[in-house]
């Protein structure tokens, strides 16, 4: 069984952390991974930086731009992750846009993911129908799960289709927004979390976008399996340095 699937079977709520690979410094990737695991996070999403990240707000855009300036490339990331499974046991997901994967060669990309021990992918601009028709078989061949996003505007029939295609979790975007931290969630979000919860989907739900602190983490996980934090974590590292990973995680839960 894929590490993500095993994790989703566990009873407790999950905390997943996103960070941009190659940021703040090019060679920080593995050190951040180790600290995150030591801090007790359940899963980690590694951002493969892209020049034009459409779905991301300013924090992740800027970290991506900086990571590219630092010299991050697809090959570089796989090199950094070469021995990662000697140190890291939590599930690892690569999150990135589709163009760099296309240029690398989608099959070659999947193969390298498998070699280094990546468990899944999140590709915001690869629509579920294109994935289903053209790439799902390939991903399965390399044991990779592909996670899809839903938003408050996603029609019910489409959510059902995404649920059918999903083998891991569904990434529930908290609000109509690009990525970025918010301080609290309102009634609209609570209602949306409940509405989706009531659909009794097969896939477990993880909430992302706008989660920044203990309060939003609590609200997000009340009706879901877990939550994903990205921008707030990146901001924390920017202000407090890479060595302060544990402080951030401790204030979330």
């Amino acid at each position: 069984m894929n590490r993500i699937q095993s994790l989703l079977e566990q009873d407790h709520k999950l905390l997943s952390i996103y960070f941009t690979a190659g940021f703040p410094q090019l060679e920080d990737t593995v050190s951040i991974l180790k600290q995150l695991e030591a801090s007790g996070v359940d899963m980690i999403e590694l951002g493969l930086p892209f020049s034009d990240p459409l779905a991301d707000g300013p924090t992740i855009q800027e970290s991506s731009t900086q990571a590219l300036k630092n010299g991050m490339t697809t090959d570089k990331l796989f090199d950094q992750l070469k021995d990662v499974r000697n140190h890291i046991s939590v599930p690892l997901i690569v999150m990135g846009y589709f163009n760099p994967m296309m240029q690398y060669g989608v099959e070659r990309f999947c193969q390298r993911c498998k070699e280094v021990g990546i468990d899944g992918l999140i590709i915001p601009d690869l629509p579920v129908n294109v994935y289903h028709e053209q790439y799902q078989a390939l991903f399965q061949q390399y044991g990779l799960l592909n996670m899809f996003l839903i938003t408050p505007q996603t029609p019910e029939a489409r959510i059902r289709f995404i649920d059918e295609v999903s083998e891991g979790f569904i990434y529930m975007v908290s609000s109509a927004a690009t990525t970025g931290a918010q301080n609290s969630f309102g009634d609209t979000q609570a209602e949306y979390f409940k509405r989706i919860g009531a659909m009794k989907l097969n896939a477990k739900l993880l909430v992302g976008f706008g989660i920044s602190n203990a309060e939003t983490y609590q609200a997000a996980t009340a009706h879901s399996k877990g939550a994903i934090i990205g921008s707030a974590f990146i901001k924390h590292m920017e202000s407090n340095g890479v060595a302060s990973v544990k402080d951030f995680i401790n204030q979330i839960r």
Partner: protein
Amino acid sequence: MSTYNVNEKGYYGDFGGAYIPEMLYPNVEELRQNYLEITSKDEFKKEFDQLLKDYVGRPTPLYFAERLSKKYNTKIYLKREDLCHTGAHKINNTIGQILLAKRLGKTRIIAETGAGQHGVATATVCALMGITCIVYMGELDIKRQAPNVARMKMLGAEVRPAQSGSKTLKDATNEAIRDWINNPVDTHYIIGSVVGPHPYPDMVARFQSVISEECKTQLQEAEGRDYPDHVIACVGGGSNAAGIYYHYLDDPRVNIIAVEAAGKGIDSGESAATSALGKEGIIHGSKTLLMQNPDGQITEPYSISAGLDYPGVGPMHAHLYRSQRAEFVSIPDQEAMDWGLSLSQMEGIIPAIETAHAFAILDERKFEPNDILLFNCSGRGDKDLETYIDYFKL
């Protein structure tokens, strides 16, 4: 029958589609489901045609360029899109999209702009309809294109600087898309070219197709046949080209020529010749040819004309290139600038620098005396005066 137009899934051959984040799906899907139905209704067509006539000034003339024809010993016609209100063909599309947006119940319009022409055309139709307008423009472009920024402001639009990435057109487009993600219900995004996710390339091409529709009638009157031997246009994203090619796409009697901006030369590292330098990939939701590094990071194009420095081309053009339906040529800055001067002095028409690129084909290849050449004179040069002044020390 094989066609070079879009298929029912939103592809031109291998290119097109909608590679968009899920957050955009409802917006784009709403448009996809409705655009054909709305725009084919009589009442829509009536209002669209009326505005094109009374407000834009259509039909634009088809002008036989006598001196130019004599010099190059062939028959040269210019479709005078430069005479459209606001100075270029761009407004054909913004009129169409604003009417569509109204029928979709949208109350807020966003747009991206590079040189500012599409921004001005969007601000214009928003003023006309009394709808809120926000235009995203790269921070660098705002500095470079002050007169157009002022025009947009006079027209009541808010110009928001795109500060991410390279701070130019592609980043302005990213910002507009992010705005749309954040405002999925009340907002319509007016894309300015035949780029972006399906249905945008097809929708924009349809609104611009009025150009070749008029050419058919006008050529029939002038030459007794409704098609040229060669149809020629400059291509950045490719909306003026799509418009003048549209009704000739599947007519094998018509040779299609696309002229791209070579900038300082194809191998100089400062170019916008996407067909020569681009590879298949995804930009702004569309699978097409785009300029990128080997790692799939999108690179910044260069051309002296701000309207041609887009790192991709629309999927229609990518398909015309790959299928060899169209001939692609790229022209360096210098030749384009010289043609800006030549057209001014031979025909009394000061063209936009984008447009000037197209005419350089006359020096690149030979045409027969009886050949009918149809050029899209897509925009006028007022906006480029500063560049012309600097370049020619006027």
